[in-house]
């Protein structure tokens, strides 16, 4: 199994940490992983994206130009990455703020109302975990117990009390994801 994912959105949406939790979870079930962020000067309002690869085998290139799955959290990212999803691949997006939705027919497109669900949960910070949940529903490449372990590993000790809420958010995401 090799899963090549891009996660893309605004700087403040938790894109990088979502990728990190995913990668750490992969580590927890003994897989090979890579996590490669876009990086730029510290500027607000910019976009951020990260490429995560989870595989049973040694990963050759951490930089790829086609993705099995694209997780898209704003319009700019959709415009930029829609074309790079492999035929038959998955595009998951949050429709909040999207004015020009995906057009491709040769891929599977899903939506998750992450921002909305997060505010329903009363904590906008759960946003990225909800989206992660949606993804894991579509591609159950990682067992939930390993996601929990991944959270434990990637969050600093003092944030461990937040893990239950994060797991809850993942569950919400798994439930609320729907075909576009």
């Amino acid at each position, binding site marked *: 199994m090799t899963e090549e994912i891009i996660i893309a959105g605004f700087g403040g949406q938790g894109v990088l940490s979502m990728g*990190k939790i995913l*990668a*750490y979870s992969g*580590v927890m079930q003994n897989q*090979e*992983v*890579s*996590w*490669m*962020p876009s*990086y*730029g*000067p510290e500027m607000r309002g910019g976009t951020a994206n990260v490429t995560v690869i989870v595989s049973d085998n040694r*990963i*050759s*290139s*951490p*930089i*790829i*130009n086609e993705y099995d799955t694209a997780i898209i959290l704003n319009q700019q990212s959709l415009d930029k990455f829609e074309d790079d999803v492999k035929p038959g691949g998955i595009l998951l997006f949050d429709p909040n703020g999207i004015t020009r939705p995906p057009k491709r027919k040769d891929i599977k497109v899903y939506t998750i109302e992450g921002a909305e669900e997060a505010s329903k949960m009363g904590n906008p910070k759960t946003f990225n975990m909800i989206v992660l949940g949606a993804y894991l529903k579509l591609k159950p490449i990682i067992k939930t117990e390993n996601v929990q372990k991944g959270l434990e*590993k*990637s969050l600093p000790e003092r944030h461990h009390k937040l893990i239950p809420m994060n797991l809850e958010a993942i569950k919400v995401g798994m439930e609320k994801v729907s075909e576009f």
Partner: protein
Amino acid sequence: MGELKLMKGNEVIAEAAIRYGCDGYFGYPITPQSEVMETLMLQKPWETTGMVVVQAESEVASINMLYGGASCGKRVFTSSSSPGISLMLEGISYLAGAELPCLIVNVVRGGPGLGTIQPSQADYNQATKGGGHGDYQTIVLAPASVQEMNDHVGLGFDLAFKYRIPSLILTDGVIGQMMEKVVVEDQKPRWTDEEIKEKYGDWATTGKQKNRKGNIITSLALESEVMEKHNIHLQKKYREIEENEVLFEEFQTEDAEYLFVAYGSSARVCQKAIEIARAKGIKVGLLRPILVWPYPKKRVSELADQVKGMLSVEMSAGQMVIDVKLAVNGRIPVEHFGRFGGIIPSPAEVVEALEQKIIGGK
């Protein structure tokens, strides 16, 4: 036994240095490598191992702090990225001239000038052939994974002390910024002055003892005769290192009819390109120099007798290709393919370049 972690390449440099028992770090912020110093400052090794960490006022100050620390026989390192490394070149030439062991990390970004902060491999010539003034070399390590970022810290220091020469880790934003699994070593103790003396001789400025002359760290010789002698000594040392310390890795070269030559992140791209090419029936392999100086000339030369052509894949306008050509010496076609200015080539375009420049170009 080590510990399994998921870390950025830059972070692991800092972690590995602490665990290796490094004595000091001196640096100045620059993207894409600032995490090295940031990780150190967060770890506060001065409270545990006693390692010194100083944010210098500039790269010029950093490299000269390195010189001061290395002169004391301490295991010290610095890190920067392209423009910062350029500022260090006078200092690097001094370090080489004074034969000081130390470690310098260059997380290369796109140039020239201020350029871009995106990854690049266009400082290869600077690292291996010129850079500062005068005839000198530094060991140049080219990690291709986060694990190697960890391993090369120790390897770099070991070689540096073995030969009294600066070691340079030549990497880029891809390796520096990405996270991969990495096994970091258990904490080792820092060396005492006595241990260093025992292992590597009593050359450092640790305070003049009654039983020896004052130790003097210098690269100056007023007389050209003395300077030439010193240069001959350096050249002899360099030849010795070229003899002993070549390090490379091969992928699918056994049956290869064509060869990629690539280091660092380009080598990762080439591995993927091999998958694509072999799926198309093209028998291509990869030679990945792990050290780019000394260069695996001999092995490149041997492979020139086996394959029909070589493609040097670099994120530059063509720099390492010179070393490949010098090793091949005209026997088979050698070409270069690169993207640059911060762009990483895709595996597909690497395969295409192989088809056009080498297979078709014959």
